């Protein structure tokens, strides 16, 4: 069935894909293509006569093949067979794959680039992954005018969504929430000494996020030395501090991440009072990831001590997610705008054949009329009449042709339709 919303020609585009909403991880990981595998798939797709262009977006949460089909039905079967059924036949079952065509397929890619389709709304990595997909299709030579333009439009939509809205702002994980709190208090994260109390998974995760965002001075303290050594292997630039002397390490830090399995507080109000006395006027951020809590809650009452635990970080994450959700309509607007530009570009490509048809029709009429009238004029004037009428037709068509040829974007589309209808050009054979 055709698109009922718009009678004008749609993009010749087909998308077949699966994502975190339709398939569990064990299926998604089987159809995840990286490096050589993605390259090979693209080559195989383009080898099929029914596929004119192809690109592949493959991340841990989605695998999507975008093709320009020569034969829609045959191209669909080729994509399903090569990209999905060959690796995970279960995906051909009900509801595992989604199929979009034309503008819906383009809209979907733009929404993906804008972070609207991500598992974590607005996550920033997807834009880079879409960029990689476009680069790969370019490098392998499977993208042509349409796919290249489609990905360029999607990347623009994604970049605009991040620049003009808050769809990617605010931390939505415990690690990045700690980074965000650090940046809300301290001028430069690079200069804020970080202390990790407890060298387990949670502490390492937050340390990784802090280092990724520029933190440079990392110290670890832990009850068992073995864990400390493991930590130091993962973070070679870090230093260790004796656990029994931890109050001293707290005094030297700006950010303290506490994540131990201890059943009672490892940092008491007394520890922190002593630490704060050694650092007057300087704020201290403490992130307590322990359950039960590793830091005495009474310490939160100390001046300049900002104590946060798992629940308050969760409050922050939920607030940020809510802010991101509120941005969805603004991102949708951007996607629609960029989609409009893409469609306008595609439809604008129709101008040339239309102009050719218009000129051909005018020339046919001119010849007919001249042929019918020539007998009434002396033979020596025939050449002049022919030249005159040719010039007349050319001059009459010059301005409208120029306008149609140079017209850009949405504004020219109604003109194309109007010209087609007024001059009844649909039946005119294209030269």
């Amino acid at each position, binding site marked *: 069935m055709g698109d009922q919303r718009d009678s004008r020609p749609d993009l010749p585009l087909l998308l077949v894909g699966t994502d975190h909403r339709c398939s569990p991880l064990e299926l998604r990981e089987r159809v995840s293509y990286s490096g050589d595998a993605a390259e090979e798939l693209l080559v195989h797709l383009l080898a099929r006569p029914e596929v004119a262009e192809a690109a592949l977006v493959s991340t841990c949460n989605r695998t999507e093949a975008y093709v320009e089909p020569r034969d829609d039905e045959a191209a669909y079967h080729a994509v399903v067979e090569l990209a999905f059924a060959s690796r995970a036949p279960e995906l051909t079952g009900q509801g595992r794959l989604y199929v979009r065509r034309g503008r819906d397929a383009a809209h979907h890619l733009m929404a993906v680039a804008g972070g609207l389709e991500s598992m974590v709304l607005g996550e920033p990595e997807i834009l880079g992954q879409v960029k990689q997909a476009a680069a790969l299709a370019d490098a392998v030579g499977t993208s042509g005018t349409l796919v290249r333009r489609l990905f360029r439009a999607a990347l623009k939509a994604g970049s605009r969504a991040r620049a003009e809205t808050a769809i990617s702002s605010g931390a939505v994980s415990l690690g990045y929430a700690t980074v965000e709190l650090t940046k809300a*208090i301290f001028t430069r994260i690079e200069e804020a000494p970080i202390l990790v109390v407890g060298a387990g998974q949670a502490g390492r995760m937050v340390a990784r996020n802090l280092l990724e965002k520029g933190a440079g001075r990392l110290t670890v303290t832990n009850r068992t030395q073995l864990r400390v050594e493991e930590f130091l292997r993962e973070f070679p630039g870090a230093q260790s501090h004796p656990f029994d002397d931890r109050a001293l390490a707290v005094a030297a830090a700006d950010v303290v991440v506490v994540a131990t399995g201890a059943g009672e507080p490892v940092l008491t109000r007394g520890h922190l009072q002593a630490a704060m006395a050694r650092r007057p006027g300087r704020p201290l951020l403490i992130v307590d990831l322990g359950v039960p809590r590793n830091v005495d809650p009474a310490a939160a009452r100390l001046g300049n001590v900002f104590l946060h635990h798992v629940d*308050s970080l969760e409050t922050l994450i939920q607030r940020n997610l809510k802010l991101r959700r509120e941005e969805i309509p603004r991102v949708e607007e951007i996607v629609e705008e960029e989609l409009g530009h893409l469609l306008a570009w595609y439809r604008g490509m129709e101008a040339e054949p239309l102009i050719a048809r218009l000129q051909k029709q005018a020339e046919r009429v001119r010849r007919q009329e001249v042929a019918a009238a020539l007998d009434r004029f002396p033979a020596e004037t025939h050449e002049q009449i022919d030249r005159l009428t040719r010039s007349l037709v050319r001059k009459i068509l010059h301005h409208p042709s120029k306008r149609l040829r140079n017209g850009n974007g949405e504004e020219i589309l109604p003109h194309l339709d109007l010209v087609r209808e007024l001059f009844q050009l649909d039946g005119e054979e294209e030269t």
Partner: protein
Amino acid sequence: MSPSEIFLSAAIVLLPLAYLVVAIAYGRVFFAADRRTERLAPGLLLAVLTLHLAYLGALTAHLRHFPAASIAEGLSVVALAVGITYALVEWLGRERSTGFWIVSVIFFVQLLASVLRRPEAAHESEVLKSAVFAAHAFLALMAYAAFVMAAAYGFLFLELYRELKSGAFSIFYGKLPPLEVLERMMAGALHVGWIALTGAAGIGAAWAYRLYGPRWAADPIILLTLATWGLYSLALVLRRAQRWQGRQTAVVSLAGLCAILISLVVVNFVVGDFHGFPGAPGS
């Protein structure tokens, strides 16, 4: 009425309204993250500051002296000084998140100036034309402008501090510069204000003693200035001695500004001018 007088009368009404419009624009930037208004707001502020500058220029020409002889004139100069300082800070730091709060304070100060204004009359006072007066008035107004800035940053510091401390993240969190930056800006403004006030008070007191003898200390503005100077000095000393943290300093900067504004209003209605030395001619 001459064209100059018409302009002065119109500008005194227009200025608070114009600052209100700018404050609303910056409010849209802060609360609604409106990108289009964010591009528009600095231009609006610049236009209003230009109008303000033109107003004070016309007033100077009309009065034939720097317009700092009355509380209303002084407040208007302070409002302009804060506006120019903020515009420079914004331009240098590309930081527009504090605009709403600073421009709101400017609006309030200019509103006060417009309400307290009395019909300007040119006078040929020798005092107003002297270099000592110019130095005294310049330093005093600079101090007040700095205290206005300190109070605005102090308010923002306290709000962000409260949100970070309680974990109840609402409108301030994520939109303001880091706590450390706010504290530094507040403390910097306090230091500038204190130095300028010390200079203004020193020059003013010496000059008043020379003119009025022992009666100089009976002037309400001098008493008020000395009290304010004492309060800010105490805050800075305790801060330097590391007994006070940012929070206490922020409270003092807010309290200090409130005290200054309330006292100026009271003095304006009781004394009718900046200074009222008992028994002094023209007091």
